[in-house]
């Protein structure tokens, strides 16, 4: 028996998530098969084969995987599931959607958003927006798990796994893809950036103008609070927190952010947290390593200048 890890593609490329999920899966010390599916998978399969610790890359190529739908991914995984005693995916939008569905069809309760694995069947996972960590013992023979990628260091890329083609079941066609509106930006991706600078709603209409020159100098991604997104000052894919992106950068700079529980839930794994806020009692200072009590409208231009 062995372990099945689900990979994801971004266009025709392998998402960086896979290296983290494979790393999590090494906890079981059993052979790992990495499943790659898409409509054009050659490039991604090659990348997948280099991930250290992967025994085989299973490749399912089908037109309907150009934009994978939950129902079709479910059927694909179920077509091979009986060969595995562990199934692992990232706790990504796709992973969160497909893993419980797959598990239910196998009459298994999945363990989701895992940050620690004690093989074969114990886990640690956050609850209450990261205010509690619970130790879970899973009593089921088949372990179906999603992992928080920021909690696992990516594996190296010096592997040389065998690539095996598998056939994909036909699409169930009860749902279909219509369109995607994705924000393209030249900045590093929020979920994996080494530095993130984020602003709250108090930045107002100047959100972009205040943050982008600094982000450029620091090669940082830009994040926002939900209040800021809801007020229309930042696009919603910038939201950091429990219901946005979870981040774990080396440096997180929070500007004009109060530090609500739901926001903190998304930044807890950051190495160094800096807060700039004019309210000395702002809760964010409890979580920050360094603070500056200042008006952001003067502090940000100063910061920009100092970085030149």
């Amino acid at each position, binding site marked *: 028996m062995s372990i099945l890890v689900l990979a994801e593609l971004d266009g025709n490329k392998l998402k960086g998530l896979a290296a983290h999920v494979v790393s999590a899966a090494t906890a079981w010390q059993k052979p790992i098969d990495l499943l790659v599916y898409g409509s054009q998978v050659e490039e991604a399969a090659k990348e997948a084969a280099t991930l250290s610790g992967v025994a085989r890359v299973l490749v399912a190529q089908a037109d309907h995987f150009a934009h994978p739908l*939950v129902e079709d991914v*479910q059927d694909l995984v179920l077509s091979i599931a009986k060969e595995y005693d562990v199934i692992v995916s990232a706790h990504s*939008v796709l992973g*969160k*959607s497909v893993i*419980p569905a797959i*598990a*239910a*069809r196998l*009459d*298994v*309760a*999945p363990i*989701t*958003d895992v940050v620690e694995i004690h093989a074969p069947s*114990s886990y640690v996972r*956050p*609850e*209450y*927006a990261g*205010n*509690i*960590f*619970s*130790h*879970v013992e899973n009593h089921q023979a088949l372990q179906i798990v999603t992992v928080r990628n920021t909690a696992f260091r990516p594996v190296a890329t010096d592997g040389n796994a065998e690539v095996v083609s598998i056939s994909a079941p036909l699409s169930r066609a*009860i*749902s*279909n*893809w*219509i*369109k*995607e*509106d*994705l*924000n*393209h930006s030249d900045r590093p*991706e929020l979920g994996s950036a080494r530095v993130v600078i984020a602003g709250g709603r108090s930045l107002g209409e100047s959100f972009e103008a205040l943050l982008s020159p600094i982000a450029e100098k620091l090669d940082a991604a830009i994040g926002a609070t*939900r209040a800021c997104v809801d007020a229309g000052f930042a696009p*919603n*894919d910038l939201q950091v927190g*429990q*219901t946005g992106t979870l981040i774990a950068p*080396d*440096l997180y700079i929070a500007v004009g952010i109060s530090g609500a*529980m*739901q926001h903190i839930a998304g930044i*807890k794994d950051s190495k*160094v*947290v800096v807060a700039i806020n004019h309210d000395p009692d702002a809760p964010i*200072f*409890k*979580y*920050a*390593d*360094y603070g*500056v009590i*200042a008006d952001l409208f003067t502090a940000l231009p100063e910061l920009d200048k*100092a*970085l030149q």
Partner: protein
Amino acid sequence: MKVLVAVKHAVDHNLKPFVDATTGQVDLSQARRVINPFDEISIEEAVRLKERGLVTEIVAVSIGGADAKDSLRHAYAMGADRALLVETDVRLQPLSVAKLLKVIVEREQPGLIFLGKQAVGEDYGQTGQMLAALLGVGLGTFASALQLKDGSVEVTREVDKGTQTISLQLPAVLTSDLRLNEPRFIKLPNLMMAKKKAIETLAAGELGIDLANRFTVIKSNEPPQKPGAVQLASVSELISTLRKAEVLQ
């Protein structure tokens, strides 16, 4: 068309949970419970569809203890037409909840089924996906907008770098995200009226579903507290401190 909305009577999200030192478990004995915010959004969406004449009946279903009636009354006050409690004193895990909901869906035959994308509390975020899979119907998670068409629903979903729109044949299961809508405030007279409305109650144990837990929370702990920020006098002091700590070049 009938719409079914699952409603969890969940721990208030403003509450900071704590661990009981003797049991090693989260102490919820005093915790205030309210309708799960994502379920409130689901009810709101269903009511808006009904106000536009696209939906004829809204059935709210909760699975939980007798106190869950409070959240069902909340649903009534917002505009639900019927409320149903599947009563249990045990804290059920998502797979059991999904199986119980499947029984209710088969009885009620709704065209559209709403759940929240997650409940506040254990943050499992699984039930909607499981229900769709058990029913063999289409699934739209993280819904931030939707449009009913003839026999289908177009759902805009929040994905990694933006949004995705998919179309699902009805019946379908949707899980509501925060941006789907902003729930209305409940007027006091509506709440008073809701108190008088009937809530049909079924015993969870009598629906022929295996409700056994599949995993156990052995113990919980609160994350270590940070000591609090070192306050620096200025932005330039911040930068020199970060450089010294080799966080910045």
